């Protein structure tokens, strides 16, 4: 499951991307969010893209996400899952009621992302930014009785991404649309990846509500030598691919403070869990 953790992180990122992420913060401004995130999965996409069952595994984390404008052009971004939990259900015989396999769990800190974003261009009609995300493998990548319980993937990701966004109005409702393209350089014999996707949001009810939809595509470059046979104890190994969608509803309780709920899930994929993810949290938007 070395790979599953990374996949999860990507799915997490699908539900954590902040509003108008292509627009960098100006100096001293920030966006901070405290969230709970959950995935409970009893099925997965196989190597052929079909869906097969698996024992129910759950992933849960409490995380901090923060963006801060170091200068008018540079932002620093952190994603810290300070409490990550991976667990597996107990298996009970449907015939005798006996416990066939006890449940198991692993708790700890998860892999942490540190990103740097630079505003390349900002006009009234578009914004262009580039970012470098460093995935720090500080989680546990080999826990549990069989080594398949993880709070991290054990490898150092470097995702270089370009975001292009435009503001617009739809029936007098303000909104934004963005697209992005990224290259994820991966270590430890994992294949590198291409990430691309799009996002659109509308701002309702006196600017208090944001409704956002997202789509993310991950394509493996199939250039890593890691396999399930060399990747001991992992559930998902290399060359994971998927198309996922997400939606987020954010509500500003005050001018700065709000709550948000997000959903994410894979529409199709290979070697990835097939159940949806949910998250909810509270954010502080220092504009």
């Amino acid at each position: 499951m070395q790979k599953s953790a990374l996949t999860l992180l990507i799915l997490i990122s699908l539900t954590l991307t902040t509003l108008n992420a292509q627009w960098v913060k100006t100096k001293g401004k920030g966006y901070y969010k405290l969230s709970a995130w959950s995935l409970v999965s009893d099925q997965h996409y196989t190597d052929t893209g079909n869906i097969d069952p698996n024992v129910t595994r759950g992933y849960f984390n409490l995380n901090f996400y923060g963006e801060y404008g170091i200068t008018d052009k540079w932002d620093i971004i952190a994603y810290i899952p300070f409490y990550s939990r991976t667990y597996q259900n107990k298996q009970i015989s449907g015939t005798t009621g006996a416990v066939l396999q006890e449940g198991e769990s692993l708790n700890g800190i998860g892999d942490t992302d540190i990103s740097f974003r630079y505003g390349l261009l900002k006009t009234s009609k578009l914004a262009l930014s580039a970012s470098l995300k460093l995935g720090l493998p500080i989680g546990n990548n080999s826990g549990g009785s069989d080594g398949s319980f993880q709070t991290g993937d054990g490898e150092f990701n470097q995702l270089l991404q370009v975001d292009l966004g435009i503001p617009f109005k739809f029936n007098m409702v303000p909104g934004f649309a963005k697209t992005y393209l990224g290259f994820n350089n991966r270590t430890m014999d994992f294949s590198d990846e291409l990430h691309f996707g799009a996002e659109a949001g509308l701002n309702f009810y006196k600017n208090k509500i944001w409704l956002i939809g997202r789509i993310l595509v991950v394509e493996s470059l199939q250039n890593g030598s890691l396999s399930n046979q060399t990747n001991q104890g992992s559930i998902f190994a290399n060359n994971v691919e998927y198309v996922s969608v997400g939606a987020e509803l954010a509500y500003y309780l005050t001018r700065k403070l709000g709550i948000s709920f997000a959903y994410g899930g894979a529409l199709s994929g290979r070697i990835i869990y097939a159940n949806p993810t949910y998250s909810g949290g509270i954010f502080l938007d220092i504009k």
Partner: protein
Amino acid sequence: MKFKPIVLSLLFSLLLFACIGEDIIADFVSPEIRIENPLQSLGLNESHQFEARYLNNIGQPENVAITWSSSDGSVVAIDENTGLATALQEGQAIIRATAVTTDSLSTTTTVEVTTETIVENMARNGSISSTSSYTLVGDFILEPISTGSLVLSFSENYVASTSLPGLYVYLTNNPNSINGAFEIGKVAIFKGAHSYMLPGNTGITDFRYVLYWCKPFSVKVGGGNINE
């Protein structure tokens, strides 16, 4: 602030979703009784101690009383309680083993009385196929070798998916579970002919299925019957 307890309640509610639950495994199989040491032939005036095993509704051996009978006591006589059979004259008789259970399960084996006793220990074959979306196909043969041990050999047409983590092969009497199964080992060969040497105490009638199981997913990938 008013919303603070709401948010905290929400976070704690989400935490409840991270509790370990229960998965119910459909592991029922039909109970059966199996004669473990059938004969090809029984030598005239010679005796043979039959052994039988009762497998319950999850494919586990269970101690139950077994009674024995012969279709022709003048050819093969058998002790009703012990299963000790004696050949009295040349010919053929059907030996029946019946479990003393509510369902009175029984099974039979045919005994040919000839000049010598030959214990049936013939090779058994079968084919594996996938019961999942992962590739698994091939023919196998389970046979004794000169040392008396058994070897499970797969043919050249064997192919298994390399995409699964932790793919293991088992011998079992319940294709829906690895509970009580004999774990041969982790699959390391995914294409072509290969074989596994089984422990010396493994009998050729001990198991009914070859089972391929993904341990981390705890699911059956495929398998096949060991034909008699």
